[in-house]
């Protein structure tokens, strides 16, 4: 491994660790009051997040040790398992409804969000497919089947945010895999037309757009979360109110430890803190992209690119919603938002980046021969 590669690995790893620790700290600050009011008797969110982090770390170590990680059969199995889970979550009695979406499977005291893992599964399956292709022909209908089946299942929950992240990460693999650019332009055109069609079909979506453009047009309805988020970030100014000094976390901003945790970070640490966190996410995604570019094995290349796209796009989507750049969509902030599924998925993605960066892509064909690719 080149010294540069080593450095990229270090940057990636340190960014992920730093974001996770920041996550625990801000889950504590943002969620204490909410948790006390709503789940007074149970363990505080921050303590639970610590446990989730420990579980995630264990999972990450396990992934780093897994020899068969590059095996296409493994990814097919993972993919099928996630599709089944996505289907299962829709069955009443298995899936639980939260905030209007049937996205959760309860497992005793824990609950699992299959969509979080489906994203990884689709990236893994697609990366595996792309790396196995032969000849110059890139385009394959199979790719779209792999993408659209789980996407459709996720939209049935519905969970627009997770679907978006999954589709965008998958298309990122198609993009770096050499799909013709015309295809993406066409896709963009079709997307715009689709949105126009959706608005025409259901005028309430226009209200969503209106609320996005001016949240105060419906301050207690569609604009509520956007306004509460702006009232956290806006007054903070350059330096913020200081750690623990958020006001919006006192039930003004709903579930401040979850999707809108970045608003509390921005409120307590100001523009400077917010930009610092954005910089960490950028370092995370950029170092992953750097690592992808240095891969010789297509599987590693696709896998790392896909994970980088997922982490980068998801953090963009989340912060975009919090800052009012994008319409409100429920997406967690990787590593930071409270929640086991989200944190575990982020760390699985991170571990996969690290694992493939150290040559896992060859494992299947040349066991123990990773050395020959090192310099």
């Amino acid at each position, binding site marked *: 491994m080149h010294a540069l590669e080593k450095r990229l690995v270090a940057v990636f790893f340190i960014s992920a660790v730093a974001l996770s620790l920041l996550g625990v700290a801000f889950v504590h600050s943002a969620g204490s009051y909410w948790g006390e009011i709503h789940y007074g008797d149970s363990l505080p969110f921050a303590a639970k997040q610590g446990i989730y982090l420990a579980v995630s770390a264990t999972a990450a170590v396990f992934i780093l040790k897994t020899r068969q990680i590059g095996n296409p059969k493994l990814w097919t199995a993972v993919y099928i398992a996630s599709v089944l889970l996505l289907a299962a979550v829709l069955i009443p009695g298995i899936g639980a409804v939260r905030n209007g979406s049937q996205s959760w499977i309860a497992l005793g005291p824990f609950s699992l969000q299959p969509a979080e893992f489906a994203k990884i599964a689709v990236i893994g399956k697609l990366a595996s497919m792309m790396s196995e292709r032969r000849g110059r022909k890139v385009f394959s209908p199979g790719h779209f089947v792999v993408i659209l089946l789980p996407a459709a299942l996720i939209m049935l929950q519905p969970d627009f945010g997770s679907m978006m992240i999954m589709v965008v990460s998958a298309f990122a693999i198609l993009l770096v895999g050499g799909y013709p650019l015309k295809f993406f332009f066409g896709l963009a055109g079709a997307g715009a037309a689709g949105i126009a069609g959706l608005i025409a079909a259901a005028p309430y979506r226009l209200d969503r757009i209106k609320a996005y453009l001016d949240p105060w047009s419906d301050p207690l309805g569609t604009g509520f979360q956007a306004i509460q988020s702006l009232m956290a*970030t*806006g007054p903070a100014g350059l330096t913020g109110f200081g750690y623990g000094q958020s006001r919006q976390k006192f039930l*003004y901003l709903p579930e401040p430890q979850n999707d809108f945790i970045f608003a509390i970070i921005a409120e307590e640490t100001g523009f400077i803190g917010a930009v610092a966190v954005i910089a960490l996410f950028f370092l995370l995604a950029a170092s992953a992209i750097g690592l992808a570019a240095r891969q010789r094995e297509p599987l590693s290349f696709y896998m790392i690119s896909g994970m980088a796209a997922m982490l980068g796009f998801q953090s963009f989507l989340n912060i975009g919603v919090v800052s009012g750049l994008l319409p409100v969509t429920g997406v967690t902030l990787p590593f930071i938002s409270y929640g086991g599924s989200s944190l575990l998925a982020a760390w699985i993605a991170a571990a996969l980046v690290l694992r493939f960066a150290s040559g896992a892509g060859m494992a299947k064909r040349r066991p123990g021969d990773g050395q020959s690719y090192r310099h």
Partner: protein
Amino acid sequence: MRRFIESKMRKRLRLAFLMLALLFAALVVKLFQVQIIRNPELTEKAMENWDRELPFAGVRGEILDRSGRKIIGNKVAPTLYFMPSQNRDIPAAAAALAPLIGADKSRLEEQMSKRASIIKLAPEGKNIPYDTAIQIGRLGIPGLYTGVDYVRDYPYGNMLSRLVGFTGYDNQGLAGIEYEYEKVLTGKGEKIRMFTDARGNPLPHVGDGWIRGKAGANIELTIDLRIQEIVERELSQAMLKYDADQALAIVMDPGTGEILALASAPNFDPSDYASVDPSIYNRNLPVWMTFEPGSTFKIITLASALEEGVVNLKEDSFFDPGHVTVGGARLRCWKREGHGPQTFLEVVENSCNPGFIELGRRVGPDKLTEYIRNFGFGSTTGSGIAGEASGILFSKEAYGPVEHATTSFGQGISVTPIQQAQAVAAAVNGGRLMQPYIVKRIVDPETGKEIERSEPVVKRQVISEEASGKVREALESVVANGSGRNAFTDGLRVGGKTGTAQKVEEGRYKDGDYIVSFIGFAPADDPDILVYVAVDGPENEVQFGGVISAPMVGRIISDIAPLRGIEPRDGQMEREYRWGDPVQIRVPDLTGRSRDELVKMFHTIRIEWNGPPEGQVIRQLPAPGTMMEESGIIHLYAGPAD
């Protein structure tokens, strides 16, 4: 089979990286817009959203008299506030609260259910009695708060009401001093900024903000409440006794222009101003009323003539046939048959109109006008009292010989009482026209620091000290020997002048409707107080200033004298006895005498003995050396003999 990464794929990866960089840059730009550019706007909106302020009314400044006695204060009258989010059973809360504050239950419930963070329960819950607030506090209704609030407190009731005015629903000054000094008196309210969560639950671990207010400044008037009480007593008695329409009085320190009392009758209840006719509360009579001054104005003519040196009061003589013809008009003396031959001092004592026409003629029309203006007539005094009028003088064009003549004895012009007090003060204080003033100083009640202090202002020297001395002497003589005899107060050397003026209505004199006035001062050798009294429309008695107003001024002066430290003095002009006057005798000193001795000594004075018959006198009323009517009784109080 070899696999490799095509260069196209690396280019695509670079493209992906570029897109990521652009997206993240967009985030930074958007956050900059939200957190830096829109910071003030969003801060304001957030403050509104967080606002859970419980307002405490600002303490309004008090209005005090010259020695700090409270004329108007404040009393606590709490106001109720309600935070709907903190109460889960608003109908029950409304039902419990409604009877206590006399509100309609359903209307109150509707008010309390409003979607607002904090609701002021007005009007029923505004300024409730303190005891009711305590009672309500015991109910322990969640979300109901008692805000400290005040209403005005009037320890002296209606006293001074036309001067100090009153405050309205929100304790804002609406009339008088309250209105005029609104800015000074208004306090800035204190607030408790309660830190709550979105549901309105207080957050005990987060410090509530206490936003400090500022009490309004106290205003100390030049008024002396003890003098005011005396004056108002006299006015209300006069109102009753003479069935007058209205009455007014001014007491002034002629040396400084300080107003010691300013009274109008009738008064009104400032806490119930809504039921009072605005013509009462808007008219502070001593500064608002303008009327023909009548004879009190002759002091101005007299002072001018003395300053000009055109008369020697004791040497020059004048014959009054009862009328005089000026410019073809026949002007009559108030005494139809005339006063006959008199010295000019007697002209003043008799208030003889033709005599004053002569004095005015000697001064000359232009000079007299100049003096009148110099004495402050024709313009407001600058007293700083709301609603002051400027009076009406003849214009230059309209000022012919007849007007000159009538002005000389105080007819045909219109002046305010305060202008007269100001002018006469100048005539007797050595010639200095002092600006009358009512506010002594303004004090910050928290620090005790003086914010503002009024000092006497000399407007100008109108006449000389010498001429002023002659005016004093002449006016003392009016009281001792002339038309002002009823104001005579033994030992205090009262000087003064009566005035009786017919009221003018629609440009014509109204028959049988007079304003009778008297302006007096004491002591004549060194004036310390000036008292002006006017009674408008007395019905029951002979309508002359000398009969109605002069005794009022006499009583006021004799009551005020001890308060002002004016000692009875020697050298007074003794009162001239006239037929019909009660015979006055000087009270002998009877202390130490036994009853038997007294029986032998006095035959003409009635004595009332109190105490043991064998004892001797230890106290007596009236005191030795004072004057009493011959028919009066001396009360003696005896103790055991030595």
